[in-house]
């Protein structure tokens, strides 16, 4: 009796295992459900060298990918099909992520200290901007093989300058600025193994970041060393670089800047550009054709990101330490702050969904992401994240200067 029960038990177990195995095999054999990538995004977890892949339609995290190195400062660009994300880490590494399989497919260490990068208008070339050694390197977007290395002009100390503000322009060109050499360069990567460089010198003191307008016509470098910004109209490059918003501080004592502002093409809302002042607690408003200053909007601290909603109706601002727990919203027609939020500690970044229904914020010191409804300012959801910083949605894939 006992023996036969045991035998029956064994047979049942064997059948159960076989059934489980075939289920598991079936699961392996069947392809994952089809999906697009247009609503995906990458969230940098700065201290742990990991990223989360998120779905911004359903406000959920899909996966965590580890092993991306030093992401204490990081930025991301996307392949034209929005399937791959290129993550530029502080340690000079470029990591290519497959958003669909949530896997690291390629990683190269290309410099010792880097700050970001861009992808060419045709999606074939990745450009990395480096602090050390100062310069720009071009890579094949498929294989990440090195195509060219362009050392930056030397700064006062004789070393190649640190490169800031790298942005893509139409026609496989990139523009960037040189912090130590007061220069803006335009690099033509039509022949990516032999790029052509056009240099604009004496553009202003200490350019700290740059942006290309959404149509790729203008490149603007913010200046740390003086009140004003440097503007290149790439349709009339021969006219050179000119100063805009000069003397915005108007002789007032500059306030200390505990974190450098970040510039990108998101600054332009309708007919106006909204730009962070340096050393003044103000957002500067310029007409985006004449580039004359039309207003200043007083805000509560040193602005870091000044980002227009995709529709251009409102502009969201976050701040440097010690005001980095607050976010202000500016109404564009009246140029007034209409809302001050206090969503969490150390709000490092903001990213709008493609058409601006929601904005995602990262709160580094509360280890969370907040998804905020832009119509009501209500928090729709919070998601856990490890010291999150940058949030990058794949809708950037089809935007110039992003």
């Amino acid at each position, binding site marked *: 009796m006992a023996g036969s029960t045991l035998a029956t038990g064994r047979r049942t177990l064997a059948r159960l295992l076989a059934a489980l195995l075939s289920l598991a095999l079936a699961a392996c054999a069947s392809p994952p459900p089809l999906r697009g990538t247009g609503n995906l995004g990458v969230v940098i977890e700065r201290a742990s060298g990991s990223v989360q892949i998120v779905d911004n339609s359903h406000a959920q995290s899909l996966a965590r990918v580890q092993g991306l190195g030093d992401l*204490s400062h990081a930025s991301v660009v996307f392949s034209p099909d929005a399937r791959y994300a290129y993550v530029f880490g502080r340690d000079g590494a470029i990591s290519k992520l497959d958003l669909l399989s949530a896997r690291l497919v390629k990683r190269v260490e290309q410099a010792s*200290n880097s700050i970001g990068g861009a992808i060419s208008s045709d999606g074939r070339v990745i450009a990395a901007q480096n602090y050390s050694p100062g310069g720009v390197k071009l890579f094949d977007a498929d294989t990440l093989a090195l195509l060219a290395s362009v050392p930056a002009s030397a700064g006062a100390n004789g070393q190649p300058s640190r490169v800031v503000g790298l942005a893509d322009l139409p026609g496989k060109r990139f523009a960037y600025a040189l912090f130590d050499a007061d220069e803006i360069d335009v690099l033509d990567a039509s022949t990516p193994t032999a790029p052509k460089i056009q240099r604009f010198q004496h553009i202003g003191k200490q350019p700290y970041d740059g942006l290309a307008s959404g149509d790729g016509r203008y490149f603007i470098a913010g200046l740390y060393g003086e009140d004003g910004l440097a503007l290149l109209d790439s349709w009339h490059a021969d006219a050179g670089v000119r100063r805009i918003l000069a003397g915005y501080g108007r002789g007032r004592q500059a306030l200390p800047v*505990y974190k450098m502002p970040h510039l990108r093409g998101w600054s332009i809302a309708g007919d106006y550009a909204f730009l962070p002042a340096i050393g003044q607690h103000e957002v500067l408003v310029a007409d985006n054709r004449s580039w004359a200053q039309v207003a200043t909007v007083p805000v509560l601290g040193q602005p870091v990101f000044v980002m227009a909603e995709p529709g251009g109706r409102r502009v969201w601002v976050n701040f440097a330490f010690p005001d980095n727990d607050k976010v202000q919203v500016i109404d564009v027609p009246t140029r007034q702050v209409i809302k001050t939020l206090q969503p969490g500690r150390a709000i490092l970044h903001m990213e709008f969904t493609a058409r601006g229904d929601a904005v995602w914020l990262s709160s580094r010191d509360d280890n969370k992401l907040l998804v905020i409804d832009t119509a009501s300012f209500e928090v729709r959801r919070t998601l856990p994240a490890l010291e999150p910083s940058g949030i990058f949605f794949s809708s950037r894939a089809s935007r110039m200067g992003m």
Partner: protein
Amino acid sequence: MDSGPVRCRLWLLAWLAASLCQQAAAAAPAEARAAALLQLLHNDCGACHGLSLKGGLGSPLTPQALAGKPADSLVATILNGRPGTPMPPWRPFLSEEEAQWLVQLLQQGGAR
């Protein structure tokens, strides 16, 4: 055999040595404050100098980079900033003793 005076002299020596050490080394802040200062160092100083302090727009703050630099001038740089560069004054956020403690930590490579 009375060892009292010897023991007493040893204690005195130890006390003297300890007080000398204390003069050379910055007093360590209380544990919670020390943690807050380290967070400030890595996150907020790190915004320019890098989370791992290897430099960025700000210069590197590794022991090698700071070797041979007088601690007093580093403390002054932290508290007062460096005019003509983006280095801002941090005096509103930390005391002189705390800046001394951070400089000592950075120079000895203990800023983890």
